[in-house]
């Protein structure tokens, strides 16, 4: 089963951070407080979009062909993602 990484507290909806990491080979655990990388803070759909965009060499035209969508639709999706990332960065900086 492909488990979804939770990024938001189900109780108060604040952003979650990483509490512990574990080596699967030797079971060593590291405990601390690590913030999630920005990429992992995005939802699955946005992460897929970014991966597709990189695989398309950053070409919106190629992306539009792959997704069977028009160029302005894909450009609008990218603009929304840029806005979302900017908001995330602003929240982190505040």
């Amino acid at each position: 089963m492909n488990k979804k990484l939770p990024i938001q507290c189900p109780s108060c909806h604040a952003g979650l951070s990483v509490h512990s990491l574990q080596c699967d080979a030797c079971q060593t655990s590291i405990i601390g407080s690590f913030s999630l990388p920005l990429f992992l803070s995005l939802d699955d759909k946005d992460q897929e979009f970014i991966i597709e965009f990189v695989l398309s060499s950053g070409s919106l035209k190629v992306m539009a062909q792959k997704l069977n969508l028009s160029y302005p639709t894909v450009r609008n999706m990218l603009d929304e993602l840029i806005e979302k990332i900017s908001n995330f960065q602003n929240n982190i900086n505040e």
Partner: protein
Amino acid sequence: MNKLINPFKYIAGWESFFIGLGILFATAFVGYLSGVHFPDLISVKTSSGLPFIVILAQSISNWLVLSALLYFAGIVLSPSSIRFIDVFGTQAMARFPYLLVASTGFSPALEKFGKHIMWSALSIGEPTDLSSVELTTAIILIIFTLLSTIWLITLAFNAFKVSTNLKEAKLIISFIVIFIVSTIITGFISNNILKAFNVTFS
């Protein structure tokens, strides 16, 4: 359903431009054959005998005026880098419902209904008898034209939304203002086209 009211999610750019040009030419040609023309952005009138070039010039002016103003609004108001070809192409495609409306002139019921109303309400023209079949046909065609107009406005709105990435108040207010202004400008241009070709209506 989504493709009927927002095909621009899937088609834009040069593809929509060439499809749209085809729609504009076909609309003018069908209008020429059926005796229907479009004297402004949304008006539909029946008058047989208009030269093809006049109906084509009206159709192209309706498309160009609206597209140019929407493109200008997009450049000024949108944070996205918008493309000329997306705005003009999708707006041309959005004229598709009037290709269907152009064919309503093939039925003589609409023109007869118009003459009947002009005579009975304003005493203009000559008395025209209207059978119940002709009356029903005319009412159906009028409802069809109204629905097509709503469809055309919905398509033009969605084309503007997709091609400029405007949202909320900016999108709605700019579209309404531009649509009204375009209707006035195209009406004025259309009058001048008719004058230039010495077309008068009796």
